[in-house]
């Protein structure tokens, strides 16, 4: 789960990380008022679940309250990577002596949370890793011991020669790790972390990704989900316990299992088509899910052909067939449907479909090729 910068800032602040004050604004007038309260120059930053907002024009400086209002006006409503900006963060512009990067991420290969710091802050860390890897210092946290004091200390010393700044940075790193763990995060970043001319170290930007699987035990984090900032179809899919991601093609896919769903998309492409979505109905046998899945696909205006690819295991073919029958009796599909059905209760499923005039195939390749053809591609 993505959360917004302003939400991550609040979590950081709660864990004692020095985060300069800021206000969230949903209108130009709110942004102007916030800038007025702060006094001096401010930064206006788009709050969206997308990287690269700076390059997209989603971060602007403003010298006066009026200018802050204008900047907010320009940013609010703009689209960054297809997502509409609905809120901006207004924060006093900081005097910056130097910028650094601090990030914590789950390192799958090392099976450990890994803390990375770089004295090259304010830029993309992948870029730093590619161009000057020696600037980056990494430390893996042993999950059995947690972050040890000396690890935080040596990361601080890597960033700053000044003992005071190093000490502040070590403390921020330790608190960031606490925030990361307490929030079920798989990523937490401060980029940039700055030193101001007075020698104070502060977190200027804040980013966190949360492990969806941890949300059941973190209700205070779960409520941070901003469904308005997400694709509405994907939000509805999640509510129906479907795994759905909208794409640009015209072959709507409905598959049981994530790996098979990806392989189906790849096969659509292989046969010259373009998948309209990733959709995994999971291992359940609930016909309602099939209905919900068909609704999602048919509501996507790009879809010209629907492809079911079901390999029955826990999922039973007859349940899926019943779901298809029920959905098509309730709504007009409007586009051709191609069904591949094999595995558990295959015969029953095929019979149910046949009774309503649907043909079911056993071979995945043939079904995909057919669906692509029906979409006008291939």
């Amino acid at each position: 789960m993505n959360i917004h910068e302003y939400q991550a800032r609040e979590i950081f602040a709660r864990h004692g990380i020095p985060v300069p004050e800021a206000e969230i604004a949903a209108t130009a007038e709110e942004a102007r008022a916030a800038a007025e309260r702060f006094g001096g120059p401010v930064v206006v930053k788009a709050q969206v679940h997308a990287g690269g907002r700076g390059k997209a024009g989603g971060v602007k400086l403003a010298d006066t309250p009026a200018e802050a209002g204008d900047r907010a006006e320009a940013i609010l409503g703009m689209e960054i990577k297809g997502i509409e900006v609905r809120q901006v963060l207004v924060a006093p512009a900081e005097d910056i002596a130097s910028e650094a990067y601090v990030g914590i991420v789950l390192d799958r290969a090392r099976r450990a949370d890994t803390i990375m710091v770089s004295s090259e802050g304010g830029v993309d860390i992948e870029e730093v890793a590619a161009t000057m890897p020696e600037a980056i210092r990494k430390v893996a946290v042993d999950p059995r011991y947690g972050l040890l004091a000396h690890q935080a200390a040596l990361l601080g010393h890597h960033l700053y020669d000044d003992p005071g700044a190093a000490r502040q940075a070590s403390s921020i790193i330790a608190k960031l790790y606490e925030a990361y763990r307490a929030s079920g995060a798989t990523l937490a970043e401060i980029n940039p972390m700055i030193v101001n001319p007075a020698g104070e170290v502060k977190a200027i930007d804040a980013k966190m990704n949360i492990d969806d699987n941890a949300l059941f035990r973190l209700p205070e984090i779960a409520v941070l989900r901003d469904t308005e900032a997400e694709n509405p179809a994907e939000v509805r899919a999640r509510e129906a316990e479907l795994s759905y991601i909208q794409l640009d093609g015209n072959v709507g896919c409905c598959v049981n299992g994530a790996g098979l769903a990806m392989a189906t998309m790849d096969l659509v492409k292989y046969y010259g088509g373009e998948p309209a979505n990733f959709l995994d109905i999971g291992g359940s046998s609930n016909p309602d899910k099939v209905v919900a899945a068909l609704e999602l696909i048919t509501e996507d205006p790009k879809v010209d052909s629907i492809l079911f690819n079901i390999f029955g295991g826990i999922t039973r073919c007859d349940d899926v067939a019943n779901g298809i029958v029920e959905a098509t009796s309730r709504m007009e599909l409007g586009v051709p449907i191609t069904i591949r059905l094999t595995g558990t209760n295959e015969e029953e499923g095929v019979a149910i479909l046949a009774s309503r005039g649907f043909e079911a195939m056993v071979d995945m390749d043939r079904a995909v090729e057919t669906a692509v053809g029906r979409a006008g591609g291939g």
Partner: protein
Amino acid sequence: MGIFIGDDTRLVVQGITGRDGSFHTRQMMEYGTRVVAGVTPGKGGRTFDGGVPVFDTVEEAVAERGANTSVIYVPARFAADAVFEAADAGIALIVCITEGVPVGDMLRVLPYVREKGARLIGPNCPGLIVPGRCKVGILPGQIVREGPVGIVSRSGTLTYEVIFQFTRAGIGQSACVGIGGDPLIGTDFVDCLAAFEADPETEAVAVIGEIGGTDEQVAAEYVSREMSKPVVGFIAGQTAPPGRRMGHAGAIISGSEGTAEEKIRAFESHGIGVARRPADLVGLIRDR
């Protein structure tokens, strides 16, 4: 032979009285797996289906029934506890089917299991099957067939698909292992490849990977360095967009890491034949 499970497997089912646990326990028993005990805290003393004793703790299942393998069907919030318990009780192989386990839980579970000398398969996996002999997990028994090909996969139904295609083509399997789709899993490709290399009944191996992480790249290197048996592969997610979690918690391209192209390149550069479609795996295996 097969790998990890077989005639010596004495299985305890953790969460045997639950919906999934009871259903799949029956399926496993039907397939011939020796289910010696079940565990559901607070339900110790009962009997499952009139034959399998239920205990409060895995410790009792080990002490009283000699269980050496465990399969876990408990809800996600209890899954890590169940693995800890199995490992602590001396279970040698722990298969965790449960989906949705927090990755922070797994961070602590993995070193514990290793220290206890146990092997964990999963979580979020379909388990494993040695055709004709033993099945632990949820892989459908009717699609497999005894034979010389080892199959290892991060996926569930895609594994079934591949097994199905092999079986339809008349090529049987020595063992099929679903290692799970989560970012942190107990047994990786290399562990399975090493086991297949050591298994005299396995003549070739098919590796089914997907986007996310670097496990396939590590496996490719291992194959070229350590394996004498032919290996073929398939990578799902060539059309997956970056930064999105494709169903599996582990199937996500992070920045420039974990793309299908990168994995396919790693396979090819280490001599692993890569199928463009799952169906092509059959031909690739035949050619080796």
